[in-house]
């Protein structure tokens, strides 16, 4: 919490999100709290289903309802109380104050409209400008994300662009109204490896240039290492560890984090060894164990781990961890 002097652009307190399913009511998020400062890049990691995307969607109040619902806690986006904000007020926030990039550039754009049409629409949602002006801005934005000959591209349909190009378009759309917070939900997962780096670089560059807060959601710790200053590790709807990136990589406190780090293949090592994996399965959110949610898979778990849940507590290195027996 080094930049504690600057105002957080996002502050989440005790967020609880519930979903109604056939198996009953499940808590997708259970008491999640964190801040994002202006110009800060925060990474969220975790296995699929751990609540990363739900967190992202909650920030923009995009949880599909029903079946989902924000059951408790608060989200403050630049002083706006997201949870109690009426929907059409919230609409003004989306895309302008906080914006989002999605995983699948293939499907995230509407196939039956040109990208220009979709960009112009978004610009005009937030700014009272003419169509021509909006189009000019859109072209400008495309140029900013390094798309060549944007004047031609703008009249093309999504399917006429390559995957990387589409993701750049997404970025351009997301940033077209200069948001203070950008949420990138697995922005490179669906892309070719060669393109991944370029796109990530683009995001980082723009984040710095525009001094935005950035939430980078990914399961790829390598990406986090390169782009983020701070990391949140989630497991089964809870934050289990939160730390400065360097600190986390150097000294993971939670056994789960450790497991995650161990499962990254290290290219430098000459010989290929069998990668350690985290044994067992993620528990069913509908049937959570009584104690620590990770206990069943934890190599160090002791009896009391199965009795009660460890709280998220500060560590001496300025991070937080939820474990009775941290490293």
């Amino acid at each position, binding site marked *: 919490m080094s930049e504690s002097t600057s105002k957080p652009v996002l502050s989440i307190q005790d967020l609880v999100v519930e979903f*109604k*399913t*056939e198996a009953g009511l499940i808590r997708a998020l259970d008491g999640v709290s964190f801040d994002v400062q202006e110009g800060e890049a925060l990474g969220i990691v975790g296995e699929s289903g751990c609540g990363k995307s739900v967190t992202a969607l909650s920030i923009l109040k995009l949880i599909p309802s029903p*079946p989902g619902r924000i059951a408790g806690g608060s989200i403050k986006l630049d002083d706006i109380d997201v949870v109690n904000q009426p929907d059409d007020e919230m609409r003004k926030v989306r895309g302008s104050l906080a914006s989002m990039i999605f995983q699948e550039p293939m499907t995230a754009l509407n196939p039956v409209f040109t990208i220009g049409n979709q960009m112009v629409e978004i610009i005009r949602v937030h700014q009272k400008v003419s169509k021509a002006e909006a189009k000019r801005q859109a072209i400008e934005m495309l140029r900013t994300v390094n798309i060549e000959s944007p004047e031609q591209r703008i009249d093309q349909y999504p399917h006429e662009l390559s995957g990387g190009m589409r993701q750049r378009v997404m970025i351009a759309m997301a940033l077209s109204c200069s948001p203070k917070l950008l949420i990138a939900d697995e922005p490179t997962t669906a892309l070719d490896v060669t393109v991944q780096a370029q796109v990530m670089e683009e995001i980082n560059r723009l984040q710095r240039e525009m001094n935005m807060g950035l939430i980078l959601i990914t399961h790829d710790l390598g990406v986090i290492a390169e782009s983020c200053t701070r990391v949140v590790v989630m497991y089964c709807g809870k934050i289990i560890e939160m730390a400065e990136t360097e600190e986390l990589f150097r000294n993971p406190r939670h056994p789960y984090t450790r497991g995650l780090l161990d499962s990254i293949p290290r290219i430098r090592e000459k010989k290929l060894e069998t990668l350690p994996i985290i044994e067992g399965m993620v528990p069913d959110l509908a049937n959570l164990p009584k104690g620590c949610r990770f206990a069943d898979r934890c190599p160090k778990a002791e009896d009391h781990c199965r009795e009660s849940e460890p709280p998220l507590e500060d560590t001496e290195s300025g991070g937080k961890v939820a474990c009775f027996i941290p490293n």
Partner: protein
Amino acid sequence: MSEENISTGRDSLWSKSRRKLMRDRAGVAAMIVVGVYGLIAILVYLGLIGENWSTLGEEGFGGMSSEHWFGTNINGQDIFSRAIQGIKTAFEVGLVVAVTATAIGGILGAIAGYFHRTIIDEVIMWLYGCIDAIPFYLFVAAVAFSLKGTELQPWGMHIAMIATFWSSTCRIVRGEVIKIRGLEYIQAAKAVGVGPLTIVRRHVMPNTTHILLVQSTIAFVGAIKSEVILTFLGLGVVDGVSWGTMLSESTSDVLRGHFGNFLGASGFLFVLVIAFNMFADALQDALDPKKVSS
């Protein structure tokens, strides 16, 4: 398609579906209603109830009474008994049409899908394309007429419905089979020299069963509803009583101010069809692995 043919993976899917179905309260209620109807149909078929449907009464157009719950018709016949008879007719028509049409559609669809991009597929697609291009009622009339004077005459309506109803099942099964065919394990089975018939029987058929089940419920309802219209047009049930004949009779009854036939037939019809529709919906939900509760 016996249990042994279905792998344990599928087996769990089936039991999961069953559990899902049982949890659907509306679906269970609908199933019970359909079951009661089915039971009545069997009892009527065995001649145990509703036997006095043809007995003439002394006076026509009797009102509702403890003896005649829905009153009597122009011939003084008991409308309630006739409505009960209608259940039997409806099940007969529904079952014959649903089973046959889905079977034909399923088999042709599987063949077409399996032989995708061959002449066999083209021919089958052409066939249902043609059937779809002929207006339904005109087609039924034509089939009914072309069977005049043959032994199949009483089945004209059934045959006409089967001849049109198979196409939707065929289309869906064909699409599904094309999808299954592309799956790796089928390709693998092919590569190791498993014969096409075995593949269809062991892999394709079990994977399309849920489609056939759902399609047959749709065909069942479609057949019952079509019977009513076809009978009104004079192409339907000839012998015995059906809800179609009762509703046809009621068209002039209601102008005289007698609603027994109308209420009897439409009440029984509506309850059965809505129960069946709900049952079909529940079935579809339960059998669709992708579907989560909305």
